[in-house]
Structures are given as structure tokens and as C-alpha cells.
């Protein structure tokens, strides 16, 4: 028979032994080095949970309060640790509740293995109790998925799942296992997957592409870098920093690229896109060479494509061939893991400083500082602003914390104003914009990086979408710090209503519960801050507290996020007020 998947030599020390499909699932996870998984039990996955009981000293199962929470926690875990996140759920509603997290992981390239129970194979297609076609449902939002109906398939399929999830451009994978396959027995013999013949995760570095890119970079007068999560996923942070420093090229980030280069690095010129910084947005349309590194030209980054960097030669360094020319025409594609391509490129580029060009960035920064940043940080205005809170957290954590943000205005404040000194510090839902992401993601982030402080910044709207995960925090005592920036509105939507819908605030005002009492109901230390004068002490108290902590900060109700590239406008038409 032909070889379709390749395997490493057997990693298991055991000679083959007979186990149930359910036990095989656990043994596979252990073989893949999994220590923590997130999930929720139910009928069709019970055999696996029964084995988890047996293996509880080897594998930490975190019971979330909703399956969506399990996926986001697994995402948070994966994003900070670089390992594959694992979420487990039962069939039917358990499986469908995973969908939002899977879609989020797909669009943000997060490695995830989701394992769902399924009704017995004899019941498939009979509309049995808690039967849903989760393979069908998850097809467009997974990198790969598979339904296992025979126990003996389990080791090979799970090995393949982990390999696919983490290799190349990472993504979520779903393995659906019928209940009878969990009960049936098999000869367990695990081999890690090392290749699939129809799948080429890492395009070979083409030196002539690198050569051409080097030439255009070397001859550039006004080059600009836009870097994305590819730098982090490729483990290329160091080589990227070397590249930036050697070439002296101003480097701007996408929201998922954030923290790959320290915030205060002199060549870091801020965020691109809709609520990005003024200089990199304006100068996108003035640069002569645009070097895109591990990013995908999302519409929130590019604004109107007809007026995006038309004057520039575009170099696109990217692992996924389907991203080349997808949204922006690329003159010089450089395919491959950016860790490898940057290494090759670094040898060929000439040292430069681009001083005059940097001054252009600095001047525009000054404009933004005067009109936006100084106002956001101003401690003399009437109400507290979101940026002030982030700034206070920066001071307290010295830029060492992992910041997990939800979606909306507070997210933009968190990303724009957080000070990051190390990589894998920014965990947010970028591509999908999933409200409710942050609370469960923070749980996973803390478990994935227990030695680091993890602060979740969440709006009052998104918080209530997954507020039940306070139960998970209470039960596991995971010491996350939760900061709610409460403006009593779905602030970003309200901002759009104000600017583009004549202030018709349809369904954006929130009548909120007493968040402090709710947190206290879960026995989580909690405090509310309504005055600026209390903020510093409250944040200190939160960070010093040994255990989870909830802090609600009442911020200005109708603050707007600026700068802003209005929908349909060009990035250089960014407005400051």
C-alpha cells in the first residue's frame, strides 16, 4: 500500500497493549505532551471522562462553565505557550457550543485540537438524542476535521490532528468520536505524525525570492515594515528584531503582531489599521517599499484596497501561499516560515538608518500625541478614560504582564496603550472580533504561563457574554486579574452610531448588574473604582493580591476611540477627532 502519512519512530515505550478507545484518547494526549485540557462532560463523551478520572494525576482537566469557554481558554493557553490547546465536549449542543471558539482560532491561526463525542455509529443519521453533524458544521471553520467510528483509528487520527494543528500556518482541528468507538478496544501503539503526502505546511525557502526582496529593500528610500502574528508563530522574534535593527526600517504591527517587538523599541512605530497609529497609516501611502511580514492584509488593516499602498513595491513574506495576492498585489513574494526567510534575508540586507524617513514618523506621532494620546492620558479631564487605566497597569506591571483583551473600545485602548516588553503577551480576538473571548482566554493564558501576571481587560458588554466563567476561576483558583472598563454602553457600536448613524443609540445602552456583588458571589475578591484618585491604589491592591481579583472601573460613558479610518476610506484619510 502507498504511504499517505509518515510517522516518527514509535515514541511510546510500551509495546502495544489493549485499551479502550476512550483510554487511547487520553494516552494520545499524553504522548503529545498535553498537560491541561478544557472541557465539559456529557452523554456521548462520558467514556473519555471516565478515563480522565483514572488519569487525573497526569492530565489536568479544567471544567469550564460553557463549551465556548473551553475553546477560548484553550486558545489563551495556546497563544501564550505556543503549544496546542485542547478542548473537549460532548455531542450535539456541546459540540455546537465550540463553534465560535473554533472560528476564532481559524481566523487567528491558533493551534487547537477539539475532541467531541458523537452518538453511536449505528445511530448516525437517525436524528438521535444530541446528534448534530459537527463535522459538517465545522468544515468551513477548521483546518481539518474527521469523524472516528472505529477505535483502531484513534491513535493515527489524533496524531494527525496535532500535527496539522501546529504545523505550517496553525489552526483548529476537530476530531469527532462516536461513543461505540470510545468503548471498543484496540491495540494501542502511538506514532507521532511527521508528514502527510497531500499537505505541505512549510514551503521551501526560495533563495532567488529572498535575493529579489533584498535588492528592493536595499534600494528603498522610504521602506516600511508591517508585521503580523507570523513573526510570533514562526518563533522569529529575535531574528526579526535583528532584521529591523540592521535595516533601520520603521516597523508597524497588526493587532496580532503586537508584542513580537517590544512596544518601546525605537523602531516600533505603532499599529496599522482602523484604530492604529497616525504615522504608519498615513505613511503606508507614502512608503516606496512595503514589507509585509507574517500578516494577511485584513480589511481592518488596509481600509479601502483601491487606495492602499498603490505607490509602493510590496514584499510579502508569508507561510501560506493562498495569502499571496489575496487582498493586495505583491511584487515580491517570499514564501516560507518567516523565521527561515528572515534569516536568509538578514544576510543580504545592508545596514541603514533612514533618519530623515524616521523623522517623518516622529512628526506625525507628535500630531497624534497632541490631538489624541495626550488627551486620552490626561488626568485632569472630568471622567476617567480607558487609556489611563491601561497606563496605570503598565506602571504597575512594568510591561511584563500578559494582557488579554476582549472586543471593542477597551480592546483598542489595551492594544494601543499597553507596554509590552516580551513576546506572546497580547492575547485578543483579532480576526473574528469575538466578544466574550477575554475572560475564558485569560484562564487559559494564566495556566499556559503560570509564572507571568495575566490581566484581562474587558468591556461591560463582552464580560456578560461569558461571565459564567467566573465559576471556573472560583473552582480552579486560577489567579487572573480581571479589569472591567465599564462605560455602560456597547461602546464601539455606540461610537459608530454617534459618527455614522446620527446618534441613534439603538440597543447599545446597558443596564448592568452589580458586577462586584456577582464576583463576590463566586468568592472572588472584588472592588469598584469610580474616582480617578482611587485608581492607582486599586490596581496595586489587585496586582498584589494572591489569587484572582476583580476590578470594575467606571470610565467615561461616551469616549470615542481615535484615530479612526472610517469604513471605506483610505488608510491615509485617517481622522484624529
Amino acid at each position: 500500500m502507498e504511504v499517505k502519512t509518515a510517522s516518527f519512530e514509535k515514541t511510546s515505550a510500551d509495546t502495544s497493549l489493549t485499551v479502550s478507545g476512550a483510554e487511547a484518547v487520553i494516552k494520545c494526549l499524553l504522548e503529545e505532551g498535553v498537560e491541561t485540557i478544557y472541557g465539559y462532560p456529557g452523554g456521548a463523551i462520558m467514556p473519555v471522562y471516565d478515563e480522565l478520572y483514572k488519569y487525573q494525576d497526569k492530565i489536568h482537566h479544567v471544567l469550564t462553565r460553557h463549551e465556548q469557554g473551553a475553546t477560548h481558554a484553550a486558545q489563551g493557553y495556546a497563544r501564550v505557550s505556543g503549544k496546542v490547546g485542547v478542548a473537549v465536549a460532548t455531542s450535539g449542543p456541546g459540540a455546537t457550543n465550540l463553534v465560535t471558539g473554533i472560528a476564532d482560532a481559524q481566523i487567528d491561526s491558533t493551534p487547537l485540537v477539539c475532541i467531541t463525542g458523537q452518538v453511536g455509529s449505528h445511530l448516525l443519521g437517525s436524528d438521535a438524542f444530541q446528534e448534530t453533524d459537527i463535522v459538517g458544521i465545522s468544515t468551513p471553520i477548521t483546518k481539518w476535521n474527521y469523524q472516528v467510528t472505529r477505535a483502531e483509528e484513534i491513535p493515527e487520527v489524533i496524531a494527525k490532528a496535532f500535527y496539522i494543528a501546529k504545523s505550517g500556518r496553525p489552526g483548529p482541528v476537530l476530531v469527532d468520536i462516536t461513543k461505540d468507538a470510545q468503548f471498543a478496544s484496540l491495540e494501542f501503539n502511538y506514532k507521532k505524525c511527521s508528514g502527510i503526502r497531500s499537505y505541505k505546511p512549510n514551503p521551501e525557502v526560495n533563495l532567488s525570492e529572498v535575493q529579489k526582496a533584498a535588492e528592493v529593500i536595499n534600494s528603498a528610500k522610504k521602506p516600511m515594515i508591517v508585521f503580523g502574528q507570523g513573526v510570533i508563530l514562526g518563533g522569529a522574534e529575535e531574528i526579526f528584531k535583528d532584521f529591523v535593527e540592521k535595516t533601520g526600517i520603521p516597523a508597524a504591527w497588526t493587532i496580532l503582531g503586537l508584542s513580537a517587538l517590544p512596544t518601546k523599541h525605537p523602531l516600533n512605530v505603532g499599529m496599522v489599521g482602523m484604530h492604529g497609529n497616525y504615522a504608519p497609516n498615513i505613511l503606508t501611502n507614502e512608503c516606496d517599499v512595503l514589507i509585509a511580514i507574517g500578516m494577511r492584509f485584513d480589511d481592518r488593516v488596509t481600509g479601502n484596497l483601491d487606495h492602499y499602498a498603490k505607490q509602493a513595491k510590496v514584499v510579502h513574506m508569508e507561510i501560506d501561499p493562498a495569502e499571496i495576492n489575496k487582498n493586495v498585489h505583491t511584487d515580491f513574494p517570499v514564501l516560507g516560515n518567516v523565521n527561515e526567510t528572515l534569516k536568509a534575508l538578514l544576510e543580504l540586507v545592508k545596514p541603514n538608518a533612514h533618519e530623515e524617513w524616521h523623522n517623518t514618523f516622529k512628526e506625525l506621532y507628535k500630531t497624534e500625541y497632541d490631538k489624541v494620546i495626550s488627551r486620552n492620558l490626561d488626568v485632569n479631564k472630568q471622567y476617567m478614560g480607558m487609556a489611563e487605566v491601561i497606563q496605570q497597569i503598565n506602571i504597575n506591571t512594568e510591561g511584563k504582564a500578559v494582557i488579554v483583551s476582549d472586543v471593542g473600545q477597551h480592546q483598542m485602548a489595551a492594544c494601543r496603550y499597553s507596554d509590552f516588553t516580551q513576546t506572546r503577551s497580547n492575547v485578543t480576538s483579532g480576526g473574528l472580533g469575538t466578544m466574550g473571548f477575554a475572560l475564558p482566554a485569560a484562564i487559559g493564558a494564566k495556566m499556559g504561563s503560570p509564572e507571568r501576571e495575566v490581566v484581562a481587560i474587558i468591556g461591560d458588554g463582552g464580560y456578560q457574554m461569558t461571565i459564567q466563567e467566573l465559576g471556573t476561576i472560583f473552582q480552579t483558583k486560577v489567579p487572573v486579574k480581571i479589569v472591567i472598563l465599564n462605560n455602560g454602553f456597547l461602546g464601539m457600536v455606540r461610537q459608530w452610531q454617534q459618527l455614522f448613524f446620527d446618534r441613534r443609540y439603538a440597543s447599545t445602552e446597558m443596564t448592568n448588574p452589580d458586577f462586584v456583588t456577582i464576583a463576590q458571589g463566586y468568592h472572588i475578591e472584588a472592588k469598584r473604582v469610580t474616582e480617578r484618585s482611587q485608581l492607582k491604589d486599586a490596581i496595586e491592591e489587585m496586582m498584589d493580591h494572591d489569587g484572582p481579583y476583580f476590578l470594575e472601573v467606571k470610565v467615561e460613558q461616551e469616549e470615542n476611540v481615535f484615530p479612526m479610518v472610517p469604513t471605506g476610506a483610505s488608510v491615509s484619510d485617517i481622522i484624529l477627532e
Partner: protein
Amino acid sequence: MEKKNFTVSIYTENNLGLLSRIAAIFLKRHINIESITASPSEVTEVMRFIIVVEVTEEQIKKIVGQIEKQIEVIKAFYHTAEEMIYQETALYKIKSSEFLDDLNVQEFIKATNARIVTVTPKFFVIEKTGKRSEVDELYETLKPYGLMQFVRSGTIAVTKNEMPITGILEKFNTTNSIS
């Protein structure tokens, strides 16, 4: 950019669910599939899909990129009509009574290279293989006789140029052989 017919050839592992994964790529972009066929290819255990769509070249390039990204897709290609040799097959079912009354029928069956597959006292079944236009032409000719049923296959096509599938697979087998 001008829309035209493109034929997408996709070589895949024979995997359950891959059809819906591929179909979803078109659905997501609101692109109607004109025809689709799936069959074993010239390589053992490798399937070949042939999909015809009417899109711009820019669109088809992106679609092929998304298709190739699927784990079980070995390779995908797109071609214009000029680069392919393609055929469709159609079956036409006609009432025998109508048919026998007209002597012209035999003539144009011969002329169009169609074939009578089945004859019963109640109906005839005629089969025609050819280009879409030829199949359509015979449809128009037979329509006045009262078509009881008409069915057309998806386009099947081979390229004029070589397809390097065997090479791709051999490369994997030689670098990853475990036995």
C-alpha cells in the same frame, strides 16, 4: 476583469467530507458551480474532481489557492476551455410513438453522432457525448418530440499539458517511506 469558464482539476486523497470542504470554498464566495464530477484518477487511490465555474481569472487563482490549502488536496489546477479536451454526456428519453412517426429522426441521430441506447415500445433513450454546444443542439432538435426526461453529466476533461501528480506523490513516498 472578464468572467469566463474555468475548469478546475483537483487531485485529492479519497476522503469523506472533502467534497463539502471544496464546495464550501465556492459557497463562501457566492460562486455557482456549473458542473462537478468526482472519479478515481490515473493514480491509484487518488481522486480527481473536475469543477466548472464562470468567474474571473483573478477569482479562480484565489479559489485554487484556497482549495490547495485543504489538507487532503494533493494539487489543484485551473485551465481555460482552450487548454482542455473536454466532453459531456447527455441522455434524452423520448416517447416511442412520437419518435417512430418521424423519419427525420434517424437522420439527425446519425448526423450528430448520437446513439440509441434503449428501445422499448413506450420510449427510446438516446445518448450523446460531445461539447456542451452539441449536447444543447440535440436538445433543441429533440424538444419538439416531447422530451420525457433529459439529463446531462458534468464536464469531464483532461488537459493538453502534463499533470505532474505522480511525481509529487513519489517524492513524498521516497522521502517518508516507513516500511
